[in-house]
């Protein structure tokens, strides 16, 4: 936990009544109830999550034990086949690559927009813009998917050609196969657009919380607006930006409908991100779920479990980064 928060000593047993006159209402029952409520919520969450995890693990183990292929290295998903084989290599690759693309694009841009709203935009403009951005978080992912397939993909076509032409030498942007821009790159871009609002909103709230005093300290040193941001706003908002990014990443990793609508999946790993093909965990679950039998579903759940672990690793790393700088937290301002 990266909390920098005070904590009282555990609530003491009730004091003997004869001790001094007590003020009117002691409110101690309230404290206990409140602690019980909030701790209870925590425990309830824990129970729910733990049972989900147990459920997933149980089903996944069943599936994996019947898998004739290697769960980690098989480039195929055919639990209904004879023999049943399925592996997550392609999905893991596709999920990681598309999320990386999404984060690389979205986080800087989102921080930029958040700063725009909190520190740059004329005040009259800031509120409506913030509002519109929040609104975009409400666009259902299926609509992002339809829009992506109908509008974004044709638009990115030209960009793809251009990237291929001028940056083909990077290998990554070398487009070696014909086909529409239904690639991991496009998915990354779409995911970036989808997570922008959530990352922006949370970052913006954090930036607005920077104590005035702190910004004034920088200003009085003769800092330009950018320097104020660098000295006070960004360091103060650091943990917030990381958390916001994690929320965004969570959405990117687990996004189903939009990816399923926009990607042209195939069980191929290719670093040429402009080529159509690849797949993500959630997309694969959506694509295979409908026609899957019990065992097929278990196999999909097993892949969902890997996504869990992935999410966990990333979040853990983020927590570590935040915790390492805990004593420099803004709450001490």
């Amino acid at each position, binding site marked *: 936990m990266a909390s920098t928060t005070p904590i009282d000593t555990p609530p003491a047993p009730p004091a003997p009544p004869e001790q001094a006159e007590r003020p009117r209402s002691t409110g101690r029952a309230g404290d206990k109830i409140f602690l019980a409520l909030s701790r209870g919520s925590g425990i309830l969450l824990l129970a729910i999550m733990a049972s989900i995890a147990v459920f997933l693990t149980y089903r996944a183990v069943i599936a994996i034990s019947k898998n004739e292929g290697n769960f980690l290295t098989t480039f195929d998903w055919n639990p209904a086949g004879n023999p049943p084989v399925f592996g997550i290599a392609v999905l893991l690759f596709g999920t990681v690559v598309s999320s990386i693309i999404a984060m690389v694009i979205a986080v800087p841009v989102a921080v930029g927009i958040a700063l725009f709203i909190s520190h740059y935009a004329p005040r009259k403009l800031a509120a409506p813009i913030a509002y519109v951005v929040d609104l975009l978080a409400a666009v259902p992912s299926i609509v992002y998917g339809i829009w992506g397939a109908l509008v974004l993909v044709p638009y990115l076509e030209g960009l793809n050609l251009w990237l291929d032409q001028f940056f083909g030498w990077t290998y990554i942007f070398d487009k070696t196969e014909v086909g529409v821009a239904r690639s991991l790159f496009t998915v990354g871009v779409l995911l970036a657009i989808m997570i922008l609002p959530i990352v922006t909103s949370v970052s913006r709230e954090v930036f607005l919380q920077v104590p005035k005093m702190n910004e004034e300290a920088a200003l009085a040193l003769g800092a330009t607006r950018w320097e104020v941001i660098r000295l006070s706003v960004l360091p103060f908002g650091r943990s917030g930006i990381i*958390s916001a990014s994690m929320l965004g990443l969570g959405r990117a990793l687990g996004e189903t409908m939009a990816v399923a609508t926009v990607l042209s999946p195939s069980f191929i790993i290719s670093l040429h991100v402009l080529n159509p093909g690849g797949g993500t965990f959630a997309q694969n679950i959506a694509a295979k779920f409908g026609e899957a039998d019990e065992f097929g579903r278990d196999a999909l759940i097993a892949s969902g479990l890997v996504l869990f672990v992935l999410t966990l690793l990333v979040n853990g790393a983020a927590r570590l980064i935040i915790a390492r700088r805990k004593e420099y937290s803004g709450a001490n301002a």
Partner: protein
Amino acid sequence: MSHATAVQDRPTPPTGPAPKSGLSSRSLPRLAPVGFAAVSIALAVGLGLAAGWHSKVQWGMLAALFFLAISYAVTTAVENKRQAKDRLATSIVWVCFLLAVVPLASLLWTTIARGAERLDGYFLTHSMAGVLGSEASGGVYHAMVGTLQQVGIATVISAPLGLLTAVYLVEYGKGALARAVTFFVDVMTGIPSIVAGLFILSIMLIANLEPSGLMGALALTILMIPVVVRSTEEMLKLVPNELREASLALGIPKWRTILKVVLPTAIGGITTGVMLAIARIAGETAPIILLVFGSQLINTNPFDGAQSSLPFYIYEQYKIGEAASYDRAWAAALVLIAFVMILNLVARGIARWKAPKTGR
């Protein structure tokens, strides 16, 4: 929203040549960025036309790059390095904003333009009962009812649960329990919605329950909680300890300190977090397919019988693939966005009313 926006230096409009002295420096005219932008766009369009690139996307990106480069170079030359950096940062922030505006505006525009074609009173008040996919009839009422109820139930469960958990983590949390909760909340953030749906489905099968709005709402709850916890946690952490101390020192019990001092101070951010979470779950399709079954008819009882929901409806209509069904899909998307928008307005109203009054 409370705009405690501070750093608003009054820009100084240019008048004549600067006097020679320490304070006033040579500075670019106020409208310089507009000029830079014009030049960059012209350059980018010219280059794009010359090279025959047909995608406007690259034109835009090129223009943005030119803009950054020009404003940096010119400012370095006319003013100085620091000003140039400041202007570069300003430019980048603007460019970020504009870059993001383009796709987002396109998305909104597509939705509004296409949705408005079909959106009318009839659409809002009728279900899809007895309407064929190809017919330009029917409405979205049954899906609105479903979404309102499912999202409502999910919010009623997850908002307090998430808030209390965040409070626990920030205000009380230490030790193994807190670490475990944090751990699982992190795991939850990446849970694909269909997996959450599967979990509830398996419970449903074990307990022999029928599909209903409630089941969908439970899956949505699983998806909503981590977003609420994480964003609330972040906002609570930003409340200065000074305020907690001030309150505790008055002999105010901790729980009232949290309720009356900590939460109100963070209310703006918390509201945003909850709204984001609602927005996210209001757009979920997969769990609804699994757990709520979907329906063409109005069912106002979320605890019994199949229901529909807006995203489910959109997906369903999209899959039909007829012109009329596409129209319905977009119109429903518009309805869903409007729904969240209104909710957002109300929440912001409340937050603003409760938010810290700004002042030095």
